[in-house]
């Protein structure tokens, strides 16, 4: 519980940093995705999914416009990354960076798709744009540092977690 609380607080801090420092036109990024990548890599499915939803909600509140968009996106990203890493395993820098960039790209694509599907307004961001490129690059750059930082924070707490058993 304590480590989850800390992770949420860290995510809030990261989002605040994002709103202050990593702002357009300098750079566009989504740091919550990188937290979700960490959750997908290191946490159990149940707690990771709940936290992804919570982080998505915080992102909606702090940097989003329509409530629910990032919640849905983060849950989807978590599930997809989780299934993706069943085939690929590892915690090396290149792997985490690659998976972070993929998650960043995925989150952009998913949020735009959801927006196009449900919103009457035209989507604000085109998929093939410098913004998307910036999100992917910052995902690749910040992915591993955030992963390592959260691993260090997590290593202070050894809390056992229950998880689901998926049955088909």
């Amino acid at each position, binding site marked *: 519980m304590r480590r989850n609380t800390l992770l949420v607080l860290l995510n809030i801090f990261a989002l605040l940093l994002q709103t202050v420092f990593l702002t357009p036109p300098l750079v566009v990024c989504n740091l919550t995705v990188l937290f979700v990548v960490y959750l997908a890599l290191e946490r159990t499915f149940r707690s990771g999914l709940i936290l992804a939803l919570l982080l998505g909600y915080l992102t909606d509140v702090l940097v989003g416009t329509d409530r*629910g968009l990032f919640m849905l996106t983060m849950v989807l990203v978590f599930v997809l990354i989780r299934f993706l890493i069943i085939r690929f395993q590892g915690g090396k820098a290149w792997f985490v960076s690659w998976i972070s960039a993929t998650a960043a790209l995925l989150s952009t694509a998913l949020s735009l798709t959801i927006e196009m599907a449900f919103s009457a307004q035209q989507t604000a961001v085109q998929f093939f744009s410098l913004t998307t490129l910036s999100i992917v690059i910052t995902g690749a750059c910040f992915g591993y540092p955030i992963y390592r930082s959260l691993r260090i924070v997590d290593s202070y707490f050894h809390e056992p977690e229950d998880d689901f*058993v998926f049955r088909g």
Partner: protein
Amino acid sequence: MFRGLQQYRAWLFVSALLVVPLFVYRAHVNKNRDTNLLDKGIFLLTSPVQELLTSSTDFIARGWYTYVDLVDARKDIIELRLRLGELEREVTRIENIEDENLRLQKLLSLKQSNKNVKSQTARVISHHTTVHSLGLRVSRGLVDGVVRGMPVVDADGLVGRIQRVGFGSADVIFAVDSDFSVDGIVVGPGVRGRLRGDGLGEKMSFKLTREARADALKIGDRIVTSGLGGVFPANIDLGKISQLEIKDGKPEKIFVTPNVDFDSLRTVMIILRESHPLEPWVTPSKVLPETLRPAEIPVTSETDLFSRTSTR
């Protein structure tokens, strides 16, 4: 039934967590709904941190930009100083050109006013002021028709005469040299005398040909060449009386300060011997220094520059 649900609870959980945000999004999208109580709570908690971050960033940014500005200001100062130096040099160059232009205009005016007097304009090559002689070298010589003894004038008056002649250059002895003398006449009283340089380059002594009364002369009287002797044309400005010593009611020592500034000569005019003493020298009033301009002859306009106005 519940056991069956329990078997698929993981899938149900995932589905629920996907459906809930989807409903939330559907409920909010396109409706511009206001923030709820929970949102407001999060804003309340996070806004001070955000404000702190923003203000600290602003503080650091201000410090950084102040430093950058100072560095830029120093660079700008160095560049501006260099530019100032360049501009000062340019101003000096333009002032020299203007000065030269004015001199040439005056000489041209002088030449126009003395159409019947043949003359050559010469550029000053060098000044050779020594203890033995005061003079300069000009860019005209034998090939230009210059011979020894020819008068050399400037817009301000008599400069001197040709002393030595080369093929393409000639040496001029100044009127203030001790080896130089010329017959002069005081404009107004008509008193005649002999002017001789004092050798120091500042003034000439004026020795009267015959005795004159003390009240006949006064300081500031203008002296011109008399034309006697056949060397210098009449009416060339020599200078004005600057010092007058009277003894027993008669002028004992008279000193004349020349009009010409010998140090700043750049271009002079050589009067060719064949032309004089037929015509007296004419100095246009515009060319004359203001103190020497006759009051009764007003300067009308720029076009009047070439009018013949004898100062005699």
